[in-house]
């Protein structure tokens, strides 16, 4: 790990101001950042510990939704009775991710901002446009079974690894932030993640120093909430494919998928096809997909996982 200085942030604005300095990074749970720092994939020279800022509550909003503090731990969020009752897809997604120890430490904002687990991003001997812009992509033509099939580019085929974000995408979450000048804004999760194109190092639409303070959920969406994750082990593994869905009695609903794209993947237009069945939805969701020989199976897996989820909702 490279040497860094460390401060405990006194206020959200002070944190955002400090984070504008080159080399500065926020740290909250640290479960992803410290892992990457040990490998010198991340080399911050200054860490701003935001754990004392108090964004650690889940509160009801006036419009009947929920406001989740940026520092609420994954375990607490999954166990919140309002989430379990009204946003079950979110609880299920959180519980399908990581291990008990990691969920106890990992935060809501940190989960959104976690980096890809592409093995070529992790191996500093390999070319990676995300880690080292312009160096190339060793994943393309490499071992790409786990990697993306849709939304990818010639520069990068990494996936976003979060389960939580897939559920939040299907729930139309908003991300609340504060900037160094004290101004705040709300970013719809649909507009939060960038596609890689030729700048895969830019993963989201946050400005330098901008701090996530909360994630808000609109009022609950009725229907059966399902999160189904397909992976190589029964527990503690990243998704090959995951499906987050909220499905009504008539078979209509909404769906987002994980494990296949650089961001939680949702195509609202595809949802119109839900009463027609999984094949129609999968075909619209995966329009323009560019799988590799190694991960072409994900196209079939998405359709079959969707079919399973839709059958479960009907039962």
């Amino acid at each position, binding site marked *: *790990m490279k*040497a*860094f*200085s*460390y401060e*405990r942030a006194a206020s959200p604005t002070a944190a955002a101001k400090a984070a504008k300095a080159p080399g500065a990074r926020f*740290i909250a749970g*640290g*479960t992803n950042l*410290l*892992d990457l720092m*040990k490998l010198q994939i991340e080399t911050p020279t200054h*860490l701003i*510990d935001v*754990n004392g800022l108090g964004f650690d509550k889940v509160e009801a909003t006036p419009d009947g939704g929920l406001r989740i503090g940026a520092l609420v731990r994954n*375990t607490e969020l*999954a*166990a919140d*009775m309002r989430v*379990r*009752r009204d946003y*079950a897809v979110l*609880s*299920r997604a959180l*519980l*399908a991710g*990581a*291990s*008990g*120890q*990691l969920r*106890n*430490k990992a935060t809501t904002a940190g989960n959104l901002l976690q980096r890809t687990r592409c093995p070529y991003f992790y191996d500093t001997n390999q070319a990676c446009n995300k880690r080292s812009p312009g160096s190339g992509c060793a994943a393309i033509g490499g071992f790409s079974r786990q990697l993306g099939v849709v939304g990818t580019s010639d520069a990068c085929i990494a996936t976003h690894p979060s389960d939580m974000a897939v559920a939040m995408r299907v729930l139309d979450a908003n991300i609340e932030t504060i900037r160094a000048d004290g101004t705040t804004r709300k970013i719809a999760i649909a507009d939060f993640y960038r596609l890689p194109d030729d700048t895969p190092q830019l993963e989201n639409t946050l400005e330098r120093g901008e701090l996530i303070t909360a994630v808000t959920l609109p009022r609950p969406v009725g229907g059966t909430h399902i999160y189904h994750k397909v992976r190589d*082990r*029964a*527990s*503690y593994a990243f998704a090959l494919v995951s499906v987050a869905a909220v499905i009504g009695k008539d078979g209509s609903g909404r769906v987002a998928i994980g494990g296949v794209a650089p961001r939680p993947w949702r195509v609202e237009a595809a949802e119109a096809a839900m009463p027609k069945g999984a094949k129609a939805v999968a075909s619209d969701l995966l329009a323009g997909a560019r799988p590799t020989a190694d991960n072409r199976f994900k196209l079939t897996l998405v359709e079959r996982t969707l079919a399973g989820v839709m059958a479960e909702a009907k039962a």
Partner: protein
Amino acid sequence: MDVPADHNPSRREMLAAAAAVTVATSMATTPAEAKAPIAPSLHTGKVSFSVNGKPRTLTLDTRTTLLDALREHLDLTGTKKGCDHGQCGACTVLVDGVRINSCLTLAVMHDGDTITTIEGLGTPDKLHPMQAAFVRHDGYQCGYCTPGQICSAVAVLDEIKRGIPSHVSASLTAPPKATNMEMRERMSGNICRCGAYSNIAEAMAEVAGEAA
């Protein structure tokens, strides 16, 4: 290294050679490091926390993980370093009663916290019920992952008691039960390469039964 083709070095010889290289390297780099314009105060931090009931204050390089602070600075070597990347669970400790990977957190981030390691759960004369159950059920073979397994197991039963659901809980709203499936799912962040999993689950079931 110039060695005869038939020379087959023993493990001991290899280790000795590696140690010699390490010594040579550190001797070579020390003067250079001393000359480097570093400002130690910028890269160190002070932290006070309670470890196994004792107040401790340390001034540490900011890079020091909680795991290294426990092992290298407080000589509490019961907590083990396995992968050092949060994947194996050997470093699991309890912070304010909650289990975490001590390798993926900085010691300086724990000012004011209460930390419990395997040494704080029980003693050889007065074992924690989970330690006693691991012994009775042979919940280990080599023992390296065991401190992490036991800290995790104690916390798992507490999480079930507090009603925290898991991936395998059939209902999200009903209180979870300490079933074998639940233990296995909740312990998935603790790897045991000897494969003592079934005995670990039995040890946990016994303690859960006693507690119920």
